[in-house]
């Protein structure tokens, strides 16, 4: 029995490291913050952090299959613009709008998957191109920033629950429990890991590679659209900004790496990516709170990002067969 725990722990090791890192940095942030551990501070932090966390979760799924999704940021923006049109009016209309937005995100993801599986194109260039298409659609929906969102819903989700817990955190938890955990524990989720670990072996073992990839990319699209929906609640508007889309895409990749998932696929967890995203977000805030001159903040953020992703290089010191360095 003790052996069991040892194995399970080792599996989650990267996740725990990312979580520990986050706790450390967040503690520093709260300690240095003027107001400290108060509901408004936590809520603001949650509102910003959860958005990237969910997009990072979206990115994790394709990465597990040793692919990548460079369109998550654009699906995020597209969902935001779409929600600013549809998630309005009566509660029923708003609810329907939410469903349409989520369905649109899933559809975008499905299209990505279909081109990759049936078109047999590489994920990186496919999602690069579809990202442009999705951004174009977002621009069509919102040539200029604007729109509105159901105020009640937005207020509820961006506020705090009784007890001081930011509502966004609850949403994050719900997404993890309703999307990631079932995926990870199901046969298709495990098949995704199998494909990333050794695709040829997975094929020979009878895994349905095409169907697994399709499900993976579709879920990625769905998660990205959840993020976009939540963005609408935070900003109360829709904006088709290429800059935001690009930043979210690239930061999601960084979050995945910091969270301990290898870009080569086969092992990792979206929960690690969540902590990776929260770490990234908090670092930005941390520099602000330490009264670091705004001028120096981007540089520090860049250096810390670089250092964080280079940490893996430490294990190179142990390698004694140089062939292992090459895949």
């Amino acid at each position: 029995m003790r052996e069991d725990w040892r194995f399970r722990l080792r599996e989650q090791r990267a996740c725990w490291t990312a979580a520990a890192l986050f706790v450390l940095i967040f503690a520093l942030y709260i300690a240095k913050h003027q107001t400290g551990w108060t509901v408004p501070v936590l809520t603001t932090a949650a509102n910003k952090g959860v958005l990237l966390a969910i997009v990072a979760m979206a990115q994790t799924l394709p990465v597990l299959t040793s692919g990548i999704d460079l369109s998550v940021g654009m699906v995020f923006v597209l969902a935001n613009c779409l929600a600013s049109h549809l998630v309005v009016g009566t509660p029923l209309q708003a609810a329907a709008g939410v469903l349409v937005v989520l369905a649109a995100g899933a559809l975008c993801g499905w299209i990505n998957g279909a081109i990759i599986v049936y078109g047999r194109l590489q994920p990186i260039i496919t999602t690069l191109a579809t990202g442009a298409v999705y951004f174009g659609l977002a621009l069509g929906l919102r040539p200029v920033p604007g729109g509105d969102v159901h105020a009640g819903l937005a207020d509820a989700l961006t506020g705090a629950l009784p007890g001081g817990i930011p509502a966004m955190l609850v949403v994050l938890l719900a997404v993890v429990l309703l999307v990631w955990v079932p995926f990870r524990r199901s046969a298709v989720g495990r098949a995704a890991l199998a494909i990333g670990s050794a695709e040829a072996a997975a094929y020979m073992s009878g895994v349905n590679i095409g169907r697994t990839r399709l499900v993976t990319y579709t879920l990625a699209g769905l998660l990205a659209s959840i993020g976009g929906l939540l963005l609408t609640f935070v900003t109360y508007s829709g904006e088709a900004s290429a800059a935001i889309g690009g930043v979210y895409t690239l930061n999601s990749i960084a979050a995945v790496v910091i969270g301990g998932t290898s870009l080569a696929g086969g092992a990792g967890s979206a929960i690690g990516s969540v902590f990776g995203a929260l770490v990234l977000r908090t670092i930005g805030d941390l520099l602000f709170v330490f009264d670091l001159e705004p001028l120096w903040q981007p540089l520090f953020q860049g250096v810390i990002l670089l250092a964080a992703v280079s940490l893996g290089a430490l294990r190179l010191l142990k390698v004694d067969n140089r062939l292992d360095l090459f895949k």
Partner: protein
Amino acid sequence: MTALALRLRRSRHLPVVAAAACTLGLLLVGSLYSRNFLSADYLLLQLQIASFLGLVATGAMLVILLGGIDLSVPWLVTVGGVMSAAAAGWWGPAGEWLAIPFGILCGCLFGIVNGIGVAYLRVPSMIFTLGINAVAQGLIVVQTGGFAPQDRATPAMHLLATGRSLLGIPNPLLVWIVVGACTLFLLHRTTLGRAIYGVGNSERAAYLSGVDTRRVTLLCFAIAGACSAAAGVLLTGYSTKAYQAMGDAYQLPAIAAVVLGGTHILGGRGSYVGTVVGVILITLLQSILSVMQIPEMGRQVIYGAVIIAMLLMYGRGRRHSQ
């Protein structure tokens, strides 16, 4: 399908031929819209504009051939522009021409760091170049905010970017032709070029054949950094001013141009001629879309759709059962 079509489908040259055909098609479509499209002036202007992208795509192609990807293009372009303008400010009239290689050198240095991270620290290129992009951004922000250097281009840079010094050919095009010729020579006639293709196909096999794969990787990233910075220097000359976010518009089109030109995104295969065609194709596409005054929305959608459509023609992988 006819025998010719079948042979073409399997040939290595299909991507280049297809991309060239598409380019011609675009010209025809454009000429339907406006007779201007086929005039020599307009075409030369397009080639001039394409030269900037062409420089970036040259560096991008080398890295992609290795099996990696360089996501630090946006800010390395800016580094080239900002640092060359700044150097002009520091060195005065004496530095008018020296500012150009200085800007390129700065980009090259970043490229070397990229190479160290990817080749020696074995960090995946996607994420390391992303980090370098952020660091470059940070440094430029500090530089421009903290030290307020000159941001105007020198007359020399302006000449290089807009002049026509030889036979009426725009100077940027000349630069691209020279760089392109060197790259073509490098890839097809030198041992380094062979090593690049070898590493891109199988770094293991190349290593076991006695190639110093790490040094090859470092060199390619260094060249890519220099190429991005060179484009930045030219851009600054063109618009007479260096500004942040200069390079944003070059990252994705460069990758698209390389891939449309037939270079395999996972590396090991591709010819520079294809990249040239790909760059011209993308430039023409962007031109036509703007001339036809298609709103930005339509442009993005068409841009993405064209890339997918072309790749479905010749970029498809093999089935599992083969």
